């Protein structure tokens, strides 16, 4: 027996039989889902399907009523809070771009770097060459090198989305949860974002929630369709989009 075999599963993320209800409304209903290490998965589903609630559960914002949520095969995420989960290596990009508007682009990335996050560590922090090199590299990846000293609040919507993805890169998590990265983007920006996510996926496990089917198609990864808090269909984009039940929930009964 291998030492590593105390892992309950080889999956990066493992959800089994998860239930959450808010005041009697079943937001998540017997949801089971696994993500292999290094995988990129697209999550689609109509409004209210439970996509964002699922992310809330994984990142510790919402506690499930029942069910198992395992990260990296060993860690039970339902017992931990947001900070601890972030420290473990799960990064999240919100639906609405959430950057620190009154701080510069560079400082936003500096805050996101996965270095010492303790009060003492930040109070006596002094920048290092390695840190500024990492920031430079991220700035280049998200094409914001020229805007590094601008306030994040003055960026365009698409740039804010990228900055937030850049913050995820600086955080360098094992698993990235990306909620609607191309909402409100132009076609060119959408295309560039797909390229960016594919690039990120070379070194990270990624879960993307998105409505934009062109974008999901461009990602070319396995798709999971959620409906009423449970998995309705799973497979390639073509399989899922030709599934009759998927068509039914999207077009209405």
């Amino acid at each position, binding site marked *: 027996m291998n030492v590593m075999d105390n892992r309950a599963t080889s999956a990066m993320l493992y959800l089994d039989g998860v239930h959450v209800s808010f005041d009697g409304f079943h937001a998540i209903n017997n949801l089971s889902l696994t993500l292999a290490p290094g995988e990129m998965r697209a999550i689609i589903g109509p409004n209210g399907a439970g996509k964002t609630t699922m992310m809330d559960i994984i*990142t510790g*914002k919402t506690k499930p009523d029942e069910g198992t949520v395992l990260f990296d095969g060993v860690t039970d995420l339902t017992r931990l809070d*947001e*900070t601890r989960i*972030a*420290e473990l290596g799960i*990064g*999240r990009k*919100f639906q609405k771009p*959430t*950057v*620190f*508007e*009154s*701080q510069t682009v560079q*400082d936003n990335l*500096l*805050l*996101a770097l*996965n270095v010492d*996050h*303790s*009060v003492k560590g*930040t*109070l*006596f*922090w002094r920048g290092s060459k390695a840190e500024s090199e990492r920031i430079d590299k991220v700035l280049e990846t998200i094409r914001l090198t020229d805007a590094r000293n601008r306030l994040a609040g003055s960026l365009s919507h698409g740039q804010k989305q990228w900055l937030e993805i850049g*913050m995820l890169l600086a*955080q360098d998590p094992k698993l990235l949860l990306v909620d609607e990265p191309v909402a409100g983007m132009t076609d060119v920006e959408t295309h560039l974002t797909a390229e960016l996510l594919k690039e990120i996926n070379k070194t990270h496990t990624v879960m993307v929630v998105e409505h934009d089917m062109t974008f999901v198609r461009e990602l070319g990864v396995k798709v999971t369709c959620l409906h009423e808090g449970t998995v309705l269909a799973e497979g390639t984009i073509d399989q899922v989009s030709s599934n009759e039940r998927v068509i039914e929930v999207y077009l209405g009964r």
Partner: protein
Amino acid sequence: MTPHMLTRSLDRGATIFIAVVAACGILIPLSNLLLPAGSFLQVPTYLVALWGKYVCYAILALAIDLIWGYCGILSLGHGAFFALGGYAMGMYLMRQIGTRGVYGNPILPDFMVFLNYSKLPWYWYGFDMFWFAALMVLVVPGLLAFCFGWLAFRSRVTGVYLSIITQAMTYALLLAFFRNDFGFGGNNGLTDFKDILGFNVQAEGTRAALFALSCLALIAGFLICRAIVSSKLGKVLIAVRDAESRTRFLGYRVESYKLFVFTVSACMAGVAGALYVPQVGIINPSEFAPGNSIEAVIWVAVGGRGTLVGAALGAVVVNYAKTFFTSGMLAPYWLFMLGALFILVTLLLPKGIVGTFNAWWDSSEEKRTAATLASAAAEDGVTEPKMAE
């Protein structure tokens, strides 16, 4: 803290501020003591005491700006920490009276004799020693803030709810300190002080020294706040202020940051109170009044939230106005004017005096830079391409 941290990023505004406070701290006491009384440039003793009071208020305002301006914690009970620091100093001053009190009891302060205390309550032990009292000036407000903050921030009490419970905290202390059997002089508080470290508190020299010390404390407090907000921790505080849950998802323990800065702020407020008491000569439960804490928040709003210099300036400006208006015919209307001031600042100067000035300065600086660039370009015979907005 290393000297490097204290001097880092002292911009022009900060340097001017320190220079002005230092100049006041040196020149005002010197003018009071050395120039003949009644001469044009001599600062009368009553003014030294009055301005000393303003400087203490400025320290309190700095403490509030540190948590409100940078971390978004609106404490409407900071007067409590100020008053607790004041009481700690007042207890030391009471024990210094000794046999010179009305009842001449060498151990018990007058009010205890009057209320038939047979012996000194245990929590008055040690206050005959200055070092112990000085330590308590920091420890008592700091400890209360730590316990209060630990409970509140861990339970994620934020925004208006936090403000309300800080009001409740200061009000509860007000009621407690009003009680005669609480052991702090009840309604009358602590007064009739004789000396501090062997110097007569009424003497001109002592008053001048206290004023200079208050200025020194203001500079020290400013440097500490400055070091905090210009460190990476300061960036985290602003991140918490602007997007708390985002900060949490980046892996920062938000409650620890809030707790740290809240405790530091309470200690500063305590020091302000401790310097205030010997200069005004009394501390009583009315210092805990919720209105006082709210007024202190108004100083910060008027001066400019999140600017530090503005907070100190706001405290001095509003209190100067208060002294001016409450001593004349307009006295009955002061509270209306204070309310009007708050509304006007909120509507017309939402960034406060210093914040508005900074915004104006930055934009005119930008224009000047642009003009220099344009003229340089014109000299080179290059026309600037029109920037598309």
